[in-house]
């Protein structure tokens, strides 16, 4: 059992002190490295701090409403195995090794840490135990790629064993060099994307959005909604904002059908804001649709969003849940690219690609400030809308996203 | 004790010669670099060996010191096998593992020689105890030099042997030197027999270079032991004609001393004694010649004997092979 310290990392450029707004987990809860663990308020905004390791939140050191400085330890996470500890780069050593010869009688010769010397890991030499090297050799594993959990970072037997276990599923995928037949999902996606590229003339417009207000409100709404409520995510805000924008711009809330040359060609308006959400699943993508989003408050949007994401992952979507949208949102999350161009999912007319949130410099009233920003890239079917409409649409979307006008409940 | 017949004396004369010649070969070959280590010669002390050992049975246990070639031969060991052991050959008494200072010939009761002064005294007492405990009539004899009186083990053993009434004959060859130091320098007690009385042990000091004297005294002592009268300390005054060990150049003796010694040579003295009793000197010379040939042949065969196989070096540490399988 190792204890890993959860510290306040530096989030903004100038950040030195924060106020703990809300712990998103309680003592005893399991946490996964990278998931939001607590919210803190900086001078600028409420910011989520992600869990430093995977394990169990064993102790909270700084309570809600207390202040903490960057670098302060605010909690302990107990990791059942070294994986949790390794994931957190700045995790301190869990237990100091017994220094040899401090007992006057010097009754123990050496410690397991002795051979680790001063603890400094020699960059050129990988410390490892004989049995670990033997196992690594048998499995063709490079010791340099393994983080050792022994004294001084020594690679031990179970470190190698874990590396072997971890690499197995990926190995079978990546190392499979023989041609693979298409799964049904792969085939469907290939067809749809090829069709989209072939038949829909697509162009993009891009704008960045400042999340500051949204983050602040999200914290407020969460407090208002209570602990039982579904947790609001940025996608929920995007859904509500997009829904409003679609209602304001009915020209884009439509789908093109038919051959442009033929008389059957139509632009069909939708009767409400039906928005798809791109969900990554095992073998590809699913785009479940939430219908009539304009009628929903954020809380309900969140509930429905959680539900259809879960059922997407389990493959339990109904047919009508996969159609009817005029636009989809594709959010690749915190690990996603700064910006990207998504391909429209036919028969939809547009798709909104949300880049990752990152600190950016903006000028506000002649002053340079740092704000949490994302790039939004809207891909539009040029048969339905042209550049001006698309730009206006996007600008409006951004205005809503940066505003304070939200509905929590319907 | 029955007085030996002339034939017995002649045999003993031959025995003295065999030891003398044997030691001569050892000296010669050691000087030529043929013998490993540093053998100790008993040249000049043959009368003690022959006088005592001729009266022992094969079953009587005999222990000796680093200067033990004569005792071993006198006890009945094969000349060739003894010389082969000194050469370190496979056919030696101990297969080449013991060497000059550790001769063992169990069949003839030669139970050990040791290089640690006084090291065998207690073992001899132990052998005597075993005979006593098992109701055997066998006795135990140990030869040692006068230097042993400096060792604690000497006193411990005399005390114990007397206390337990053990049938052990302590034969001290007092040649006046311990290593390179004369007796005066390492003990205030001139005669080793002086130590016997305090422990309650019977003792006698005799001229160790006169075979008839040794024979008579040893015979009496042995009979006393066999009668169960307890341990006996026989001190034989003698002289070393060769140095302490081969290579010792004897700087520490005067030339006059050495001339005196030659006059006291036990072989010369026995020859004089026997010719005085009417034995033909030529007969004695013939016996000497015969001994010379016998020893020569044995030495030649020993020199031709095979050397031990290095692959066997770990054998005999223990009896059981499993116990011996300890990495070196």
């Amino acid at each position, binding site marked *: 059992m190792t204890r890993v310290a959860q510290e306040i990392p530096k989030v903004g450029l100038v950040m030195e002190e924060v106020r703990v707004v809300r712990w998103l987990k309680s003592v005893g809860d399991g946490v996964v490295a990278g998931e939001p663990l607590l919210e803190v308020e900086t001078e600028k905004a409420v910011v989520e701090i992600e869990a430093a390791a995977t394990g169990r939140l064993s102790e909270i050191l700084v309570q809600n409403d207390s202040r903490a400085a960057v670098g302060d330890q605010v909690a302990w996470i107990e990791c059942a195995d070294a994986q949790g500890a390794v994931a957190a780069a700045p995790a301190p050593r869990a237990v100091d090794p017994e220094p040899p010869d401090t007992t006057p009688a*010097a009754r123990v010769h050496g410690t397991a840490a002795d051979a680790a010397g001063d603890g400094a890991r020699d960059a050129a030499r990988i410390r490892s135990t004989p049995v*670990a090297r033997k196992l690594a050799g048998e499995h063709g594993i490079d010791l340099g790629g393994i983080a050792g959990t022994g004294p001084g970072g020594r690679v*031990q037997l179970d470190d190698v064993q874990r590396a072997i276990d971890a690499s197995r599923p990926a190995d079978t995928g990546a190392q499979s060099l023989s041609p693979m037949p298409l799964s049904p999902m792969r085939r469907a996606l290939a067809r749809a994307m090829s069709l989209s590229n072939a038949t829909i003339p697509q162009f993009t417009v891009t704008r960045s959005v400042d999340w500051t207000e949204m983050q602040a409100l999200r914290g407020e709404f969460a407090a208002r909604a209570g602990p039982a409520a579904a947790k609001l995510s940025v996608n929920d805000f995007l859904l509500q904002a997009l829904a409003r924008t679609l209602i304001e711009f009915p020209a884009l809330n439509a789908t093109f059908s038919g051959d442009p040359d033929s008389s059957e060609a139509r632009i069909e308006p939708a009767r409400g804001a039906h928005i798809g959400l791109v969900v990554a699943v095992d073998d590809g993508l699913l785009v479940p649709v939430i219908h009539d989003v304009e009628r929903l408050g954020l809380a309900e949007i969140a509930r429905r969003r959680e539900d259809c994401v879960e059922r997407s992952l389990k493959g339990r979507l109904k047919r009508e849940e996969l159609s009817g949208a005029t636009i989809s949102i594709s959010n690749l999350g915190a690990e996603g690219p700064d910006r990207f161009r998504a391909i429209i999912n036919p028969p939809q007319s547009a798709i909104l690609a949300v880049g990752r949130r990152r600190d950016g410099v903006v000028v506000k009233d002649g002053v340079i400030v740092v704000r949490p920003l994302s790039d939004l890239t809207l891909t539009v079917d040029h048969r339905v809308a042209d550049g001006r409409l698309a730009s206006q649409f996007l600008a409006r979307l951004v205005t809503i996203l940066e505003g304070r006008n939200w509905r929590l409940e319907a | 004790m029955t007085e030996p017949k002339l034939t017995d004396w002649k045999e003993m004369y031959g025995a003295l010669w065999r030891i003398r010649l044997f030691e001569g070969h050892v000296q010669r070959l050691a000087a030529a670099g043929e013998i490993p280590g540093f053998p100790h010669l008993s040249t000049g002390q043959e009368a003690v060996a022959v006088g005592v050992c001729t009266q022992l049975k094969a079953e009587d246990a005999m222990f000796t010191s680093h200067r033990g070639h004569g005792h071993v031969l006198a006890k009945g060991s094969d000349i060739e096998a003894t010389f082969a052991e000194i050469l370190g050959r496979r056919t030696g008494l101990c297969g080449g593992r013991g060497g000059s200072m550790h001769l063992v010939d169990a069949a003839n009761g030669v139970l050990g020689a040791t290089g640690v002064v006084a090291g065998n005294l207690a*073992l001899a007492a132990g052998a005597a105890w075993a005979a006593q405990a098992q109701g055997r009539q066998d006795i135990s004899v140990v030869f040692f030099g006068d230097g042993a009186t400096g060792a604690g083990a000497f006193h411990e053993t005399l005390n*114990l042997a007397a206390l337990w009434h053990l049938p052990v004959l302590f034969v001290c060859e007092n040649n006046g030197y311990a290593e390179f130091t004369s007796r005066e320098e390492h003990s205030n007690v001139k005669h080793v027999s002086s130590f016997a009385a305090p422990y309650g042990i019977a003792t006698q000091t005799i001229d160790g270079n006169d075979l008839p004297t040794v024979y008579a005294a040893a015979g009496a002592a042995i009979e006393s032991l066999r009668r169960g009268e307890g341990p006996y300390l026989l001190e034989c005054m003698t002289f070393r004609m060769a140095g302490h060990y081969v290579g010792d150049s004897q700087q520490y003796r005067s030339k006059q001393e050495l001339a005196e010694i030659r006059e006291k040579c036990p072989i010369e003295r026995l020859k004089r004694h026997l010719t005085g009793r009417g034995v033909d000197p030529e007969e004695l010379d013939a016996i000497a010649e015969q001994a010379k040939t016998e020893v020569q042949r044995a030495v030649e065969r020993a020199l031709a004997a095979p050397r031990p196989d290095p692959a066997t070096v770990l054998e005999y540490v223990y009896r059981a092979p499993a116990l011996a399988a*300890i990495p070196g």
Partner: protein
Amino acid sequence: MQHTFIEILRRALDEELARDPAVHLLGEDVAAGGAFGVTRGLAQKHGAARVRNTPISEAAITGLATGAALCGLKPVLEIMFIDFATLSMDCLVNQTAKYRYMSGGRLAVPLVVRTQAGAAGGAAAQHSQSLEAWFIHVPGLIVVAPSTPAEAYGLLKGAIRLGEPVLFIEHKRLYTMKEELPEGAELPPIGRARIARSGTDVTVIAYSAMVQTALEAARILADAGISAEVIDLRTLLPLDMATIAKSVSKTHRVLIAHEAVLNGGVGAEIAARIGSELFDALDAPVLRVGCGFAPIPFAPELERALLPGSADIVRAVRGMMERQ
């Protein structure tokens, strides 16, 4: 029914005296019962000729026992304290151990030297040592160190019947230990270790009184979720590397614990052998727990500070199992 270590040793000697007329006991105060009472009553039972007192002459009595062993007796010599074995050493090392070899296998010394070692509180520097390391250094000797009464019973009988010079090292703190003697149990073979406790995380190698200490440490470690396998060596020379190898191949971690001084102790020999023969099985450096490098002091708190205990074993093992 439970008997003390002393009672069980006495029984073993009694039975061997009855079984083999060549067996004789000797030593200082042995006929009177011995310094620790091990031989009490045996002179009366088997006769003064079979169980004998000797003067305080370790050199002579060791030689006596050796000479007798050469000539058909099977002596069991008692050297009261292993500290006094120093006085026996010339004979023991230069003669007894080497007789078979020097004679090219023609002579043997079936001798058992019984002695006892260890600190027992206040016996001080010359009566508390553990000197077994000196003797594993001598080819020709067998060195045995039993850990419990039942073990001692079988190992002593085995030693008497073995036909080699055996140094049989008892431990003063074990003398009052009680155990039931299983009837008809097979004699444990000389040269074979036993697994005193099975485990999977670490191998703790010990002998003599330290086995009990190691078992205590193992219980404490078990509460902390660490499974220790305790090996009771029983025989120190020859060493049972096969049992050690099997255990280390399973646990990949080793700690050797003995009461003797660490420096040049038996643990050092074992650690070196593990390092060279079992290198590829190791997941941690081999550790040793032993006595600090000082003579055993008289005052109890000083003695306690020097001697190794279960806490030292626990601490060392926990250090071994740490994750960074």
